[in-house]
């Protein structure tokens, strides 16, 4: 891992990154075999003037090289652990870099970098510790009907089990303050982390706000994203987690 020389940025890119990091906003992007799109996603976010940390979750393709070339700091898992684990690693990394605001962003290109500002603005205006993106308050283009139904069922499940009134539970586009990030400790390595974050937000008693965002489903993101059958795995993971400390 590491040592291939690709995960280092050139000096102008590193200087530009340092300048963006100085504003205290870090965008964390977990990615696994996203070499095809990660460069464009990172470049979009960098154009908005934010520091980017990509967590390469043990990819076998050129995710790491492409992310670094586009101007991201890359943290590499030596093995594939899952999106939840990658997010926690990214949050830990951003905290060590002195981040005041951490934004989580999907690597498959279904979020819009231009909406990061809105998320942060709402976070600050509401004096909240979490700003949670909601595609159901905003827009979801090309969202398949069956997936919409499963997502709605997840909303009902989360409201009942966590007592947190949100309209979108499995949206990876969110922002959190440093204080909020420090209250999160993800132990669900895979997709159940999205529910786990909400459980921890509810348990922390910290303030949260929902913000309308757009999720653009493409053939690529639909192929890479969760399948409907994953809902059962998520439920099982959440149940199993209740059985041990």
């Amino acid at each position: 891992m590491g040592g291939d020389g690709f995960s280092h940025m050139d000096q102008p890119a590193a200087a530009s990154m340092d300048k963006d990091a100085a504003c205290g906003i870090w965008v964390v992007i977990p990615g696994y075999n996203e070499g095809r799109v990660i460069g464009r996603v990172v470049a979009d976010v960098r154009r908005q003037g934010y520091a980017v940390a990509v967590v390469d979750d043990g990819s076998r393709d050129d995710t790491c090289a492409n992310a670094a070339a586009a101007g991201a700091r890359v943290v590499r898992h030596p093995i594939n652990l899952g999106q939840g684990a990658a997010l926690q690693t990214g949050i830990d990394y951003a905290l060590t870099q002195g981040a005041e605001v951490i934004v989580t962003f999907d690597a498959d290109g279904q979020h819009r970098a231009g909406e990061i500002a809105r998320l942060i603005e709402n976070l600050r205006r509401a004096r909240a510790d979490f700003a949670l993106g909601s595609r159901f308050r905003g827009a979801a283009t090309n969202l398949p009907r069956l997936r919409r139904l499963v997502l709605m069922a997840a909303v009902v499940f989360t409201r009942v089990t966590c007592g947190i009134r949100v309209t979108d539970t499995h949206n990876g586009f969110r922002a959190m303050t440093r204080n909020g990030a420090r209250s999160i400790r993800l132990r669900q390595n895979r997709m159940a982390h999205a529910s786990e974050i909400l459980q921890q937000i509810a348990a922390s008693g910290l303030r949260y706000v929902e913000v309308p965002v757009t999720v653009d489903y493409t053939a690529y993101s639909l192929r890479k994203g969760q399948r409907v059958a994953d809902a059962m795995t998520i439920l099982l993971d959440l149940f199993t987690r209740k059985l041990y400390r």
Partner: protein
Amino acid sequence: MIAKIGLSLLLCVIMLYAWHEYRRFAAVASMAALAAAFGLYFVWFPDQATRMATLVGVGRGVDLILYIWVCISLLVLVNLHLKLRAQSELVTALARAMALAEAKAQDHDASPPIAPT
């Protein structure tokens, strides 16, 4: 009598196992201990098992004990699964520490050298 003693010993082992595991997996350990306690009771008071079996509609007392034994086996299986998850958490912590240490080293290498005074 030999069978009773053998079964009792096995159930006692399950009780010990549950006690040993209680600190880490309280829910599973409690269920296993409860099932083992029921098993012990039925081994030594089979008439009660038959009465209970008739009450719950199982038929014979021995069938009820067999079902309890199956339940205990499943609980031990769940416990093993939880142990695997605990191991997975350790692997995650290790991989994360390695990744962060490597990133820190890279950041250090990338930072510009301090100008001589």
